[in-house]
């Protein structure tokens, strides 16, 4: 198995964890952002492989960069999940305010004076 296959397998394992275990209900957005990170990683890996072959990167530096892409995938997943969470919060706040306003309108403002 090539290093890229290893990386891809690790990244997919991360995606599985992010999508199914930690972020139920947000997996589509998580996956979209993480897949974009994976696409980026693929392009980067081609560059870094060339730099490694040319002696511009040490093996440790190359490994650090590849592992860094996997870490970025995870961080991107947390951002995607957090955005969904914040949007859900705002929606819920708006609904709650609306319910309270409706209750006040219904039970107080419509009450006959005296």
């Amino acid at each position: 198995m090539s290093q890229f296959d290893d990386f891809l397998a690790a990244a997919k394992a991360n995606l599985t964890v992010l999508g199914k275990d930690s972020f139920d209900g947000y997996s589509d957005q998580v996956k979209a952002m993480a897949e974009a990170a994976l696409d980026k990683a693929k392009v980067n890996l081609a560059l870094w492989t060339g730099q490694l072959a040319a002696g511009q990167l040490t093996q440790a530096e190359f490994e650090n960069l590849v592992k860094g892409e996997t870490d970025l995938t995870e961080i991107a997943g947390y951002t995607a999940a957090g955005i969904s969470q914040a949007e859900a919060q705002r929606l819920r706040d708006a609904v709650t305010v609306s319910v309270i306003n409706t209750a006040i309108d219904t039970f107080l403002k419509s009450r006959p004076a005296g």
Partner: protein
Amino acid sequence: MKLASIARSALVLTLLLAPVACAPVAPPPNPVAQATAASLKAQTLSLLDVAGDPYANHAAEVTALTAKIDAAASAAAADPLNALSARQWDVLRDPNRALYGGTIALWQSQGTLGPAFRDQKKIQIGRAFDYILCLEANKAQTTSCGQPEEGGAS
């Protein structure tokens, strides 16, 4: 009269339940955290600029910046609703991972970091901070963050 009593009871019940319904599931926006993250991003990228020098020459700067990043991580972790941001900071600073913490560990073990690596790592860590900043911005209002910062690796 009886109707008014029922109405009052219903209103009281609604208002009593409102705090429960309003219990936040997402953390509130935090402009200080946003500014701190932006500042730490700039400081980290500046530090990487000098990582071609021997680590020992900059050990004090590394210690100072690491302390600031640790403080930001602790601040994020202080709010249980902020778990996602806290996890991001943990990944970023973990010396056994490969972003800020792992890069510092590599600098320390290797002595110096090569120019090609520094260029690429600056882009990578910059993107990590951009994701952190994007999440922070979206706590206040829906904000399109665009593509995270790109550079020579694209």
